[in-house]
């Protein structure tokens, strides 16, 4: 520290803290979207740092599809309890009750209802004017073009061709009637950075990021975990599916029916970091949401997905 130099991770951390403070200072009713995954864990730690010694001045909101892994729900409740954060859980109850499912309705439609639809109506319901999300530019190529402060119109839609220029650290936080802001403090982080930071800061994460033997269905080369219960019906075997026991872990966490595991023996953070360093595939390789077309993420974002 005496060298008056900040390491790469500390520079990213300071940048993210400044972004969160800007949100707290300039918006009337902000919220942090908390998806329970590793990026959310990092985001919460940075928020704790940004507002220390005070509490995080906005609630965390989990937009729940009902299809998340049981380990995620358990982790979420324990974690938010421990750090004394205000947690709001919002679901599209109507569509969940009607049995909306990626295999029956298609991935795009299911996401539109349970994620985008639920998110937009939750933002409206609570009157949130800014939603902080953990998306990173490295994750996907349309995200690489998105601003840190990304404007949404009254319908929650992103207009990629009409973005405000974003210069230096001078963020334009102004909204017109009906508009809202999505804010991405982790824009410049990569998957490797996230893991390095989790190790450096000893940040708790959902245990299913670590490898263990699991029963999976192998479908189109993707390892889909087998889970009991009605919520996880996509993880139930269909005709022609083979059930196998494989040592694997989850590289990113989504809904059970749409999240594949990867074969891995990484049981420690060091193992995971070594694995991520050697990875030849992107972290969203096992996310069915991105694979439908070359611009499926951009399309979803235009519709209001975060």
């Amino acid at each position, binding site marked *: *520290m*005496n060298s*008056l*130099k*900040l*390491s*790469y*991770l500390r520079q*990213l951390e*300071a940048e993210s803290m*400044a972004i969160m*403070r*800007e949100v*707290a*200072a300039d918006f009337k009713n902000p919220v942090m979207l908390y998806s329970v995954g590793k990026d959310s864990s990092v985001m919460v730690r940075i928020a704790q*740092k*940004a*507002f*220390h*010694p*005070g*509490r995080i001045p906005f609630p965390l909101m989990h937009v729940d599809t009902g299809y998340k892994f049981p380990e995620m729900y358990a982790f979420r409740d324990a974690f938010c309890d421990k750090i004394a954060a205000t947690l709001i859980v919002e679901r599209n109850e109507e569509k969940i009750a009607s049995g909306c499912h990626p295999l029956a309705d298609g991935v795009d439609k299911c996401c539109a209802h349970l994620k985008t639809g639920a998110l937009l109506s939750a933002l409206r319901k609570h009157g949130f004017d800014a939603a902080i999300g953990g998306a990173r*530019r*490295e994750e*996907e*190529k*349309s*995200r*690489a*073009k998105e601003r840190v402060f990304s404007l949404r119109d009254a319908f929650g839609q992103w207009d*990629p*061709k009409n*973005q*405000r*220029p*974003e*210069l*230096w*650290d*001078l963020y*334009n936080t*102004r*909204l*017109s009637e009906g*508009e809202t802001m999505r804010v991405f403090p982790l824009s*410049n982080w*990569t998957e*490797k*950075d996230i893991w*390095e930071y989790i190790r*450096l800061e000893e940040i708790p994460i959902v245990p299913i990021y670590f490898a263990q033997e699991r029963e999976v269905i192998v479908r189109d080369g993707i390892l889909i975990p087998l889970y009991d219960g009605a919520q996880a019906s996509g993880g139930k075997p269909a005709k022609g599916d083979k059930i196998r026991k494989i040592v694997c872990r989850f590289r990113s966490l989504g809904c059970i029916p749409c999240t594949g595991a990867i074969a891995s023996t990484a049981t420690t953070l060091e193992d995971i970091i070594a694995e991520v360093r050697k*990875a*030849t*595939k*992107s972290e*969203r*390789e096992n996310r069915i949401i991105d694979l439908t077309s*070359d*611009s499926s993420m951009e*399309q979803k974002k235009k519709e209001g997905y975060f």
Partner: protein
Amino acid sequence: MSTSEKSLLRFVTTGSVDDGKSTLIGRLLFETKSIYEDQYAAIEKTSKKKGLKDVELAYLLDGLAAEREQGITIDVAYRYFETAKRKFIIADSPGHVQYTKNMVTGASKADCAVILIDARNGVLTQSKRHGFLISLLQIPHLIVAVNKMDLVDYSRDVFERIVRDYQEFSQKLDIHNILCIPVSALKGDNVVTPSKKMAWYEGPTLLTTLESINVTADRNLVDFRFPVQYVMRPNSDFRGFSGTVASGTITPGEEVAVLPSGRTTRVKSIVTYDGDLQEAFAGQAVVLTLADEVDVSRGDMIVRTKNLPQMAARLEAILCWMDDQPLNLAKSYILKHTTRNVRAYVKKIIYRIDVDTLHRQAAEAFALNDIGRVDIQLSLPIFFDPYKINAGCGRFILIDPDTNRTVGAGMIRDAARHLEDYVSDPQHIKAPEQKSPHTVWRELNIGRAERERLNAHRAVVLWFTGLSGSGKSTIAMALERKLFDLGCRTALLDGDLLRHGLCSDLKFSAADRQENIRRAGETAKLFFEHGHIVLCAFISPFREDRDRVRSLFPDGCFAEVFVKCDIEECKRRDPNGLYRKAAGGLIPGFTGIDSPYEEPDAPELICDTQMFSLNRCVEEIETHLQEAGILRRIKTP
């Protein structure tokens, strides 16, 4: 080297697709193993669909569907890779479409720029243009990558001619560190590995150069500047000021001044989640606590008493215009500088620069992508350093308050120096002259915090603004009665009250109105410091005057209540018959008749007295006071 100790380099790449920029970035990513198989597979699929023989690496970089459809890059994209020595963030800026806007955006955070030149074409206008913008933005390091060397037989002569041409051009620029490298992005020569075909070149490869550029020397570690971003008041025992150190360093115990109030105190501690620091330096996000209880709000700047920034409300700057709607000299824009927002007019365009010839031209307005030198008038002074000396405190953006779009980016050269402008327009710039310079501000005998504890509520100023007859005083009186009955200490100030005594020497000219509001603000401040809930009902038609009053109070202790009502309805109500008199020409300069009313941009509260009853308006303000924690220990009966 572990990642947590690696340094970071942000660089911008520019040049057109034809120069092989995408191939070069693709090469850097590929050779540093930063392209994933599934990402590659996705662009392979798209390339095939388009009927291309080879995989088009540019698709990897063109993130938007429209870009892939049209085969052009529209927007700046960010890429990430790392080597054993360093982490890199590339801002990939398209070369030909909206080059100025994109270049300035992409380069705004860069430590280094890489310009691509096609060896077959030599130094074209475009390469000069990019060099000029990089020089304006004061990016300290420039790498000129002379690409496609394979297509000129790796000729030393070709390379050296281009180097000579570029050096001749760059004499006119303000860039000191320029390095030229002959490369072939396609074949990989001198990108990551030294070229066997160009043994005559003895310099480093592109990647080696990027790895070894020293960026820490470029930071300003001398001038301590701390723009306050957010006031931290988690409980009554802690009051800290959060922000990112813009430049310089600070240690606990050092004497500092808070601008604009000019109060001096010492830094008590530097607080972080990871423990208190013995020193904070440029780039760190921290919380400062101060030895004395002084009012500090967002937008204030904490500096050393012996190293002050400049203060001015009239600036000269290089402005880059980024909006489809041209710059309007008659319009007031919002200028954001550090954490401070002020209103700004561009008073005059001194010249526009033709970025191709570098000639200065006269101009009436700036259109999209224009750049040049302007003279800017602010509603309140800002604290700055010239961009060249301290970039973080010398740059700003302009926002159009009607569309809320970011319309301009500026780099401050200095305070404006046009004597005639000061003389002809002194009212605008000067703070009220201090005619009793030998009085000393003394802290109150009993401070506000103590009084608040006794009162069991916090002090606050509610500023009701709106047309005559909109209902300001009516709401203020009803609310005051309610608060008084709850046991709050209140004070009510309104226009009539002040003009009968304190302000009886003032008329209704713009200057007198301004003075009237200034006195009202200062009076409110005295009551506020004595722990009162101060209700002020003044037409206060001008934004600038209201903003000036707001700046007297700490964050969260001043709430603007916009009492909204149509002028027609106000005329109908006309409680004191003033509109009738004004219409008859008996009251010149009457707001709404022959003098404008500027609506607040972002009032804390809006009371629409045409839509809602008096009770409803009063309740809404009361709820606001409760939610804001002003009335926290008082129970409503």
